[in-house]
């Protein structure tokens, strides 16, 4: 869907817009005006994050010679909620649940996420047992009341909660997704008696079946709500005082923007906003290039994130884990069920450490050297080899020009670390060892991408890889070769990619309902009524941010064969359902099922378990383009600024390859691999199988030399 520009969104298409991304270390600010864009990077001010935000905004405005009153819109994303959970610095939170279910959030799935390690520790729930309370009440799976809510017990609980100084309360009753009446009533009673205490109801936060996930999500929402509420309300005040007179919208993990009011109600929906911004940027770039099948690849210091984007839509999911503590393993974090852009996160970054295991295999990550001590070459005392050390030894990074020359790397330390930890144990020379490290980290990423694609029924071959983040351009070409990808795009100045992405995001809200419906007894009327209600809920939220913009509605459903336990996401047709819709729904489900699993199962009814509706208004304001396309018929020649020795796996040896400065390459320049394109923030490795070309937008585009792709794979 092309970004429609409408004045109805309440923001003028020519508005000056600011994007702010608060990360764990840095706060990035991007300012876009019709005349160009500016960015600023400041340290995140943990105690009062709004200080850093205002500082960054002032700096960006100063660069552009503008004042706060000139700004038409602020778009904001933040990891504050995530960090509060990871550092366990949220509010004193209580859980009120159905009698008999005090331990659901701690028992979790009653399993061990790692089979062979008998010394694992399970993730601690956000609400400890002394703060988990139960009340007599019971609703069954069909929403019927089996035991009325004991209102006296709830009233009594109010005193206890007040005495304990609880700041935030999660209410989660069994089957409240089917009938929320008890939760709502308990919420009313507690709200009346405990003014000022925040309440999160599971029927609002996550109205989906499976008590552990629903309660865990609700607790996480409650846990971060006071902090996020205070922060967002402070921020609104401070920006008002600073002279901004524009609306502020928040980036959610689902890739849409929402209002500050909604963010205060559902702060848990903000957890993955930074990475979501990166994916939105990839989506936007793909749109501009007219590419419909994308693999977005973001590689930083400790992890890499991969996301599949089809036809301008990043893969969506509603399951996510915060704070995976054990080798990023599934199950070692806390589940939150919210709309998220689905990404695989791999412990593979520049700081990921290499070693040799008992099977004499090189392993890389997820342990990371971080920035302190960092890779051995940083000269900060690190002695273990990191991926960056391998890149130094392999000639991909110029030790004298790393990070624009601000840090001088010591290649001798890289060599010593690799030799000691990989070369000697494997009896390989230091170069091959470094090559092995690089291959393994690339293979890890490729495998994660493949397993992810299988899980989601997507093919990777023939996609375009969009690579950003400091580490991605070093490994993108080789990763592409491993995945059978022939087209790679490396956007210009991707260092503030997330914040730029915020400016490209639509205003959107997603609602979901768990209701089990077999196609065999599909009642179109009741489903239409349910969707009408959901549409109203979602549109109301979107309208807060886009009062008169055109709003599009997208509907999908979680479907499976009746009796299965896992669903596939199926896009639903537009318009009201009729009795005849059953055949269409089955057809869409089976088409998706066949793509994923090769064959359909005959004679089994199909069932819908979850109904999803997303309302979306276009991204506010106009995206800034980087000037007209280069129309020169013949590409200008590229000038090499030197040469470097680079390992060429196809020839199994080092060879001298030319080095180009990205800033000195004119639009349209072509560079034949093997070559290196250096810039301040990172280095693009153009393997022998690729040709690089500088696009008008400033992006580097790598295209496989057709025959070379096959050769490289062998």
């Amino acid at each position, binding site marked *: 869907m092309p970004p429609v520009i409408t004045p109805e969104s309440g923001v003028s298409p020519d508005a000056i817009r600011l994007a702010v991304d608060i990360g764990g270390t840095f706060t990035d600010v991007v300012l876009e005006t019709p005349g160009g864009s500016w960015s600023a990077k400041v340290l995140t001010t943990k105690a009062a994050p709004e200080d850093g935000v205002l500082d960054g905004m002032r700096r960006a405005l100063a660069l552009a010679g503008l004042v706060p009153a000139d700004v038409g819109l602020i778009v904001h994303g933040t990891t504050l909620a995530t960090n509060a959970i990871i550092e366990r610095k949220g509010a004193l939170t209580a859980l009120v649940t159905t009698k008999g279910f005090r331990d659901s959030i*701690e028992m979790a799935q009653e399993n061990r996420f790692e089979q062979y390690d008998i010394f694992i520790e399970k993730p601690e729930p956000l609400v400890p047992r*002394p703060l988990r309370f139960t009340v007599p009440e019971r609703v069954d799976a069909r929403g019927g009341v089996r035991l009325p809510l004991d209102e006296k017990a709830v009233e009594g609980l109010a005193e206890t909660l007040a005495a304990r100084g609880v700041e935030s309360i999660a209410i989660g009753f069994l089957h409240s997704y089917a009938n929320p009446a008890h939760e709502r009533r308990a919420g009313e009673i507690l709200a009346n008696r405990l003014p000022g205490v925040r309440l999160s109801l599971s029927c609002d936060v996550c109205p989906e079946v499976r008590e552990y996930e629903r309660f865990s999500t609700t607790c996480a929402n409650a846990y971060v709500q006071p902090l996020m509420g205070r922060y967002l309300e402070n921020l609104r005040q401070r920006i008002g005082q600073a002279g901004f007179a524009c609306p502020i919208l928040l980036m959610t993990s689902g890739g849409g923007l929402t209002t500050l009011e909604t963010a205060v109600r559902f702060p848990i929906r903000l957890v993955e906003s930074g990475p979501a911004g990166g994916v939105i940027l990839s989506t936007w770039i793909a749109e501009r290039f007219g590419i419909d099948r994308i693999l977005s690849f973001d590689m930083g210091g400790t992890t890499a994130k991969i996301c599949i984007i089809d036809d301008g839509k990043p893969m969506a999911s509603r399951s996510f884990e915060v704070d995976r503590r054990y080798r990023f393993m599934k199950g070692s974090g806390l589940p939150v069920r919210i709309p998220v852009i689905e990404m695989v996160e791999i412990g593979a970054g520049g700081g990921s450490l290499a070693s040799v295991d008992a099977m004499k295999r090189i392993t890389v990550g997820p342990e990371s050297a971080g920035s302190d001590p960092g890779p051995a070459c940083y000269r900060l005392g690190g002695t273990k080899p990191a991926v960056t050390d391998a890149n130094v030894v392999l000639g991909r990074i110029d030790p004298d020009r790393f990070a624009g020359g601000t840090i001088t790397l010591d290649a001798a330390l890289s060599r010593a670390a690799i030799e000691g930890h990989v070369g000697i144990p494997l009896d390989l020379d230091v170069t091959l060892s470094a090559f092995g490290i690089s291959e393994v980290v690339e293979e*890890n990423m490729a495998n994660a991408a493949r397993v992810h694609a299988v899980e989601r029924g997507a093919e990777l071959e023939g996609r375009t890889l969009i690579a950003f983040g400091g580490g991605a351009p070093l490994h993108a070409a080789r990763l592409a070769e491993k995945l059978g990808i022939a087209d790679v795009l490396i956007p210009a100045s991707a260092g503030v990619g997330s914040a730029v992405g915020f400016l490209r995001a639509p205003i959107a809200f997603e609602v979901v309902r768990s209701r089990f419906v077999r196609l065999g007894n599909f009642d179109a009327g009741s489903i239409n009524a349910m969707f009408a209600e959901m549409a109203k809920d979602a549109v109301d939220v979107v309208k807060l941010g886009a009062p008169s913009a055109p709003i599009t509605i997208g509907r999908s459903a979680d479907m499976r064969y009746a009796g299965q336990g896992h669903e596939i996401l199926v896009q639903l047709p537009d318009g009201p359902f009729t009795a005849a819709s059953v055949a269409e729904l089955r057809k869409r489900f089976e088409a998706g099922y066949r793509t994923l699993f090769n064959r359909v199962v005959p004679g089994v009814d199909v069932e819908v378990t979850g109904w999803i509706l997303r309302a979306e208004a276009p991204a506010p304001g106009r995206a800034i383009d980087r000037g007209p396309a280069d129309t020169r018929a013949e590409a200008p020649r590229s000038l090499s600024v030197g040469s470097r020795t680079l390992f060429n796996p196809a020839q199994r040896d080092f060879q001298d390859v030319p080095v180009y400065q990205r800033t000195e390459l004119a639009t349209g320049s072509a560079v034949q691999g093997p070559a290196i394109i250096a810039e301040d923030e990172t280095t693009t490795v153009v393997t022998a199988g690729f040709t690089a070309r500088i696009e008008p937008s400033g992006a580097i585009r790598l295209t496989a030399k057709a025959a070379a792709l096959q050769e490289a794979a062998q």
Partner: protein
Amino acid sequence: MRANHPLNRIEYQVMWNRLISVVEEQAQTLVRTAFGTATREAGDLSAGVYDTTGRMLAQAVTGTPGHVNSMAMSVGHVLDKVPLARMNDGDAYIVNDPWQGTGHLNDIVIVTPTFRRGTAVGLFACTLHVVDIGGRGIMGAAQQVYEEGLYLPITKIVDRGEINQWLVDIIAANVREPVQVIGDIYSEISSNEVGGRRLVAMMDEFGLEHLDDLARHILDHSREASLEAIRKLPFGTYHNSMTVDGMNGKSMELKAALTIGPEGIDVDFAGSAGVVQNGINVPLCYTEAYTSFGVKCIVAPHVPNNAASLATIRVTAPDGCILNAKHPAPVAARSIIGQMLPDVVFGCLQQALPQGVPAEGTSCLWNVRLMGGMGRVDGDPAVLAKATPFNVTSFHSGGTGARPKLDGLSATAFPSGVRNVPVEITETIAPVLVWSKEYRTDSGGAGEYRGGLGQIMEIESAEDMPFGISTSFDRVVYPPRGRAGGKAGMTGKVEIVSGKSLPPKAHSSIPAGERLRVSMPGGGGYGDPRRRDPAKVARDVASGLVSEEVARNVYGVVLTADFAVDEAATTKARMVAAAE
């Protein structure tokens, strides 16, 4: 690939990683398409890839140690019966023979050859637990395997891509939940096909004509790594015995002699009890699986499972011993005893590695297997005719043993790795109401490190009908023992809330209007409870995990009214205890 180039070593390892990723994809497909709750909710499945001689090269890490060696062997059995030369592209074979599969009839193994350019290059196998296989139920009254359900010898289920509908019809006609069971078999067939496709793609990418060299690389390195870990241990023979509840009030002893030597570890179960009349007997393949799992957890947890790493752990048991039951002994509930074996092995290894193994835990799963409707439960047929027929298993666990330096895990499966089934899902698919599912106070064995707590579940019919439970529980008479001075965990029990106690290994009916209560065991403690940090005891009491009485009498910790440690009284209590 050029021979002997040092780069090959890197390429081999890249391919090895890829192969592991292929079986993970295969397993994921199984989880996402399966019908039975065991696979889809609980992860009770296995998936692996084999070379053309039937040696397992890689296995997905999934929830079920019981399939570790057993599935590895089943491909060999298939090849013995049907040589690869007689297999065609698109064929798949089915088997649930307990002695050639994974230990009981409910586990169905599917084996599929993979062809590339017309040549067989390897095989994929997977196994999962179907919800019903006919017969008299997991803990039924069967006295021979013939009574335990449909028995499928190695048979072709897919012929050149065509499903053998005759066989599918026979299976469907013999099980109580045909849709789920047939759906599961379809799921297995698909998952092997997905694995095969990925293997062929990998061979294309790396230009491999066969897997022989890669297989040699994987197996050689795995064997060396396993032996290197074993050779770090003090050689010798270590003995242990553990008493379990057994059957019909007759306890039984499980005895092991574990010998560590330069060429591997041998475990022999001579002296253990003999086979019994009911289905808790264990085929040797399943004994091997849980024994190897127990050894591997302690000795070489990071070496992946394959033919070579598994071959360094050898398991024997005399014929007719309960751990080597022969056909036609009933074996449906073999997991009860099988899952006890890691604890038996830990008791041996503790002597070689004094600070390296946990205390005993609940170990066998406390799966709540419920049923209702005509013919599945005692009651007036006129009344039962109105009941919804159902059959549902939800996976639950007691506490695990405390670890050296760490408390045990509460309500967590070990050695099995299955996940539970959410109460909301159980109630969606079956007419039952779970009224309670909470930790069981004081069930964790006391120790410097406390055993994990068990849990209590209370369940009632949602339609005021009688319903049945098929129990297959142990640790009801003999508790999980503590280690290094730690106390035993609490034993489990099954009862009707109004008072009647129910047998732990049988089928029982719960009358309409009554509630069932299942109280699961806690794990054993590690170390002297009087050495436990008083602050931890105080926290346990404040959380309701340990009662004040146990804190005072067993841990020697005295608390004030607001759960703070009364230091003086605690010091005194502990001194008195030390003097005694």
